[in-house]
């Protein structure tokens, strides 16, 4: 079936099987392989993308359900010139090792900070409880997100 939606600001049209998840559509059809697929049943959070501004698990959504939506992936939260404040904060705090969970951590944290730039450590932990990291533990990740809050307050909505 043919589906039209917007990815990272650009309109796209894809032809997919009805059973294709949004995650597989992004990776296989649109070659946006920054979105990682860990568990494929909605527990690990690695595949988190933004759909109409909300952080959602792209493995728990059919591509067909994204018809007409604005989707932002990890590729849409970075640029070629420099690190964004959130990326820079992850680097500063060593908030990643293997990097597999990082796209989901960044997209989730971006959605949180865009909406709640004043969130406290408890709120960050509660929100990131839906994202599994098997390398670092979570202290450095929570620190990185907390440290990035200032940039979201300044920019009023984030990068």
């Amino acid at each position: 079936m043919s589906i039209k939606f917007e990815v990272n600001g650009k309109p796209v049209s894809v032809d997919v099987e009805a059973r294709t998840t949004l995650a597989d559509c992004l990776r296989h059809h649109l070659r946006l392989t920054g979105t990682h697929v860990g568990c494929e049943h909605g527990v690990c959070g690695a595949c988190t993308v933004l759909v109409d501004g909300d952080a959602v698990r792209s493995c728990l959504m059919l591509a067909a359900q994204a018809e007409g939506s604005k989707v932002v992936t990890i590729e849409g939260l970075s640029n070629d010139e420099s690190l964004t404040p959130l990326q820079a904060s992850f680097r500063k705090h060593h908030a990643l090792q293997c990097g597999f969970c990082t796209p989901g951590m960044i997209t989730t944290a971006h959605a949180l900070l865009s909406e709640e730039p004043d969130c406290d450590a408890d709120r960050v932990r509660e929100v990131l409880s839906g994202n599994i990291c098997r390398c670092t533990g979570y202290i450095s990740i929570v620190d990185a997100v907390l440290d990035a809050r200032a940039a979201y307050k300044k920019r009023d909505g984030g990068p």
Partner: protein
Amino acid sequence: MKLPPLEYVCPTSLSEAVALLASRDGDAKAIAGGQSLMPMLAFRIAAPTLLVDLRKLPNMREIKIGADGVRLGAMVRWRDIDKDARLASAHPLLKAAVAHVAHYQIRNRGTIGGSIAHADPAAEIPGIVVACDAEIAVTGKSGSRVIAAADFFQGVMTTDLRPDEIITEIRFPAWPARRRWGFQEFARRRGDFAMAGAALFYDEDAAGSVINAHVGIIGVGDRPRRLPQVEAVLNGRAIDEATIARAAEATSSSVEAQEDIHASAAYRRALAGIMVERALLSASR
């Protein structure tokens, strides 16, 4: 795993959606947020040949609060309940329970109707609708009907909903301002399925004795249930240490418990008693 092959349709009216569900002899399934159904498909526990997406149906996302209670459209999301400040007074028990549902990303898509249709015994909202005597409005090919929550849940992921029926609205009776309530659940990690949980409320007469006690349990048996033996312990008594201890004891001795890899039936019965104890402590504060 990848999902099984299926067809997908996205009707724009309730009658069209019902007709599509009725067209496959039980092999079609409605999908709203998909946060329970998509994992079922990924595990291939469910393999419908047709998915009927409800997202374009009108009037399914409203939260109406009036003198007769709270009415939630079936496609109200957890996030919508979180964001609705009116519910803190209109239905604080509902609001408190929803705070325990799943994780951030799932809360952005998961719907109240979807959770009720899925009927996981450990899910919060089925427990809340049973504890509160809520009504579940559904529409199918033979028309609309309203089902009492106690009659709706029939077992693990088994409900009174017919294959061609769609949940349209959840109706909670009005919530008196002075009502006492408590919600407690135990899960090994925040957002995981509860191994036991208690949702309860009661009113008090002029002398401070309990009237109208409602005690619901989730995550212990094959479906959410009220515990009449525990309600009988509470009704007519003041909530003090002795009453709470008796209620906890009555919970553990009367609740039906199942076992799985996470906990034995005996452990779940004991845990249910502790959840009722904690819920009563928080209600009486």
